[in-house]
């Protein structure tokens, strides 16, 4: 559909510009403020004649020192151990004596400091790239360090997340884990030109409750300092606001969050049709008081960094902590694979991990892992006197579901279910429900496999939009099978936490929605605005 408001990339900003841009809203909430683009790689000016080599050498030392200091500071500030290790390793590369000596040598050969640094970094980059494999990936690190060092030598702002000393809307092509590690409290909202609903930017923003819009074509052409509004629900970016209008947006969002935070109680439609609003958790630390229960307990989060398989006793303790704290818990057995590695499983690399041995399929090669886990879940249930529901990830066939259900029930687990993440499972929802007690739809993977679109692919965000009719139809098939069997069918993917999608899912017949705790208030509020009949009409039924 042509959009007269959308500029072609690269057109001049002279004349009346667009009033708004559209992207994909991935983290709800509204905000406004001056836009600041994340500084890109510095452009090298034309070489200049070197009058004072000693001054150039001093500039090189200062630039490298600035890069090292900045990386070490960020390593010290982050709470993410992996990010800290990466930043430390980068600092060591920037601190390399060989690199500095080479840059100094280039000065003595007549080059100015920025060019000397550029040449030295480029040579090391080429050396690593030529070695291939892991080291070739480190070549990108050297590009990043080169940009930082050259910017420092030119007196330009360091590439990366800016800290201007006032609130702003951060705009970038996409954010890397290294960028997000440095994201401070001045950032009011995020807008990226690339990225999808399951990109790193989106997940980070939702975790922090920051409004975010991704896949916003044209946002990089908007000049720095333009005051913009961001609606992380609808994906609309308003351009060129007055300071008064911006303040109004910020105030409105604050009032809205206060109103939502004050609301409570179980999820229901306007006509009191109950819809359980459950939490996605990785451990007992993610639980919230007064929640209706847990719809997705991701057990693999307890063991992500282990080199040894977690023992029976340790698993019992971790599960019992969650079971004891809340009434209703749906436990998902370990969801891992070569795309989502658990070191202790020791799975060999695969050419196509998303289509390989992952989820329940790991049981084909390592059956003892699931046996131990089911034993531990049953024991934790016994110790706490609770009856957790248990489900398996990445189930594809009815036989897999039946096999899993048999093993769980033989241990006294009474409510057994499977996740629907593969179209083959959705197409057989009725047959699956003849074997198990409930279904839980994982919309992120179901999108990926239905649309043949990598969920991390930044250029395919439209295919991964949970409003895609083909995805909604598969969800409807599952819900219909559940209604016929009188068994619950929930959604626990990102779609479940989208307030605009929640009424549609309920209209399709979904009986529970499971999401990150921060998303519950907005979903509860939106559901309460619609009767069940309205939900059905929204769903096209």
């Amino acid at each position, binding site marked *: 559909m042509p959009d007269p408001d959308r500029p072609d990339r690269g057109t001049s900003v002279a004349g009346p510009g667009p009033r708004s841009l559209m992207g994909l809203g991935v983290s709800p909430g509204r905000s406004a403020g001056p836009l600041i683009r994340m500084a890109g790689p510095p452009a090298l000016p034309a070489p200049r004649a070197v009058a004072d080599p000693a001054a150039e050498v001093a500039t090189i030392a200062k630039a490298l020192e600035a890069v090292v200091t900045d990386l070490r500071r960020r390593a010290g500030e982050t709470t993410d*151990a992996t990010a800290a290790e990466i930043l430390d*390793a980068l600092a*060591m590369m920037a601190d*390399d*004596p*060989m690199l500095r000596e080479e840059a100094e040598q280039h000065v003595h050969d007549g080059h100015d400091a920025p060019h000397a640094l550029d040449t030295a970094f480029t040579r090391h980059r080429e050396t*690593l790239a030529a070695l291939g494999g892991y080291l070739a990936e480190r070549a990108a690190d050297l590009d990043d360090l080169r940009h930082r060092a050259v910017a420092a030598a030119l007196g330009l702002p360091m590439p990366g997340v800016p800290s201007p000393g006032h609130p702003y809307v951060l705009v970038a092509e996409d954010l890397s884990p290294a960028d997000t590690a440095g994201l401070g409290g001045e950032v009011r909202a995020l807008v990226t030109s690339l990225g999808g609903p399951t990109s790193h930017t989106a997940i980070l923003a939702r975790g922090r409750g920051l409004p975010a819009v991704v896949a916003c074509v044209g946002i990089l052409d908007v000049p720095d300092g333009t005051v913009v509004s961001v609606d992380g629900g609808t994906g609309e970016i308003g351009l060129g606001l007055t300071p008064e209008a911006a303040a109004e947006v910020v105030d409105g969002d604050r009032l809205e969050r206060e109103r939502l935070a004050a609301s409570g109680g179980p999820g229901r439609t306007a006509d009191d049709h109950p819809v359980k609003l459950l939490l996605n958790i990785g451990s007992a630390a993610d639980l919230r008081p007064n929640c209706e229960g847990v719809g997705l307990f991701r057990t693999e989060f307890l063991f992500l960094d282990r080199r040894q398989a977690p023992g029976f006793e340790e698993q019992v303790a971790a599960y019992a902590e969650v079971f004891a704290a809340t009434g209703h818990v749906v436990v998902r057995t370990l969801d891992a694979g070569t795309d989502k590695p658990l070191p202790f499983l020791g799975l060999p690399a695969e050419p196509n991990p998303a289509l390989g041995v992952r989820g329940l399929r790991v049981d084909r090669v390592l059956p003892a892992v699931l046996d131990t886990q089911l034993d531990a879940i049953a024991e934790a249930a016994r110790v706490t006197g609770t009856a957790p529901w248990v489900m398996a990830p990445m189930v594809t066939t009815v036989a897999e579901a039946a096999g899993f259900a048999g093993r769980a029930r033989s241990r006294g687990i009474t409510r057994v279910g499977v996740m629907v993440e593969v179209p083959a499972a959705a197409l057989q929802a009725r047959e699956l429900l003849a074997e198990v007690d409930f279904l839980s739809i994982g919309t992120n993977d179901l999108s990926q496999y239905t649309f043949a679109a990598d969920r991390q692919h930044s250029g395919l965000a439209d295919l991964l939009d949970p409003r895609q009719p083909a995805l909604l139809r598969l969800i409807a098939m599952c819900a219909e099978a559940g209604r016929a069997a009188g068994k619950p069918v929930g959604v626990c993917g990102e779609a479940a936490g989208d307030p605009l999608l929640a009424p549609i899912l309920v209209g399709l017949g979904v009986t529970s929605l499971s999401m990150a705790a921060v998303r519950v208030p907005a979903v509860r509020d939106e559901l309460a605005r619609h009767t069940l009949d309205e939900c059905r009409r929204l769903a096209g039924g």
Partner: protein
Amino acid sequence: MAQRTVTVASASGLHARPAKLFVQEAVRLGVPVRIRAGERTVPATSMLGVLSLGAVQGTEVTLESDAPGAGEALDTLAALLSRDLDAGEALDA
């Protein structure tokens, strides 16, 4: 010239975390040491140099130093390389 020849024991080779630990130790010791793998010789304090050796698990490397009394430093670094520096630690990204 003092020398020690040792086989890289770390599962991930002399990359990532093991390379970082090795270079940190070389910097800490403060004795000029070179590390050689095949035709390539680099200072042990150079992260980029050590990475560029491309040493994997099982690669034989030689540590050498002309500094007087470097034996102890060479022993320390050789002992480090002959341990699996990945073991018992979180995987490097």
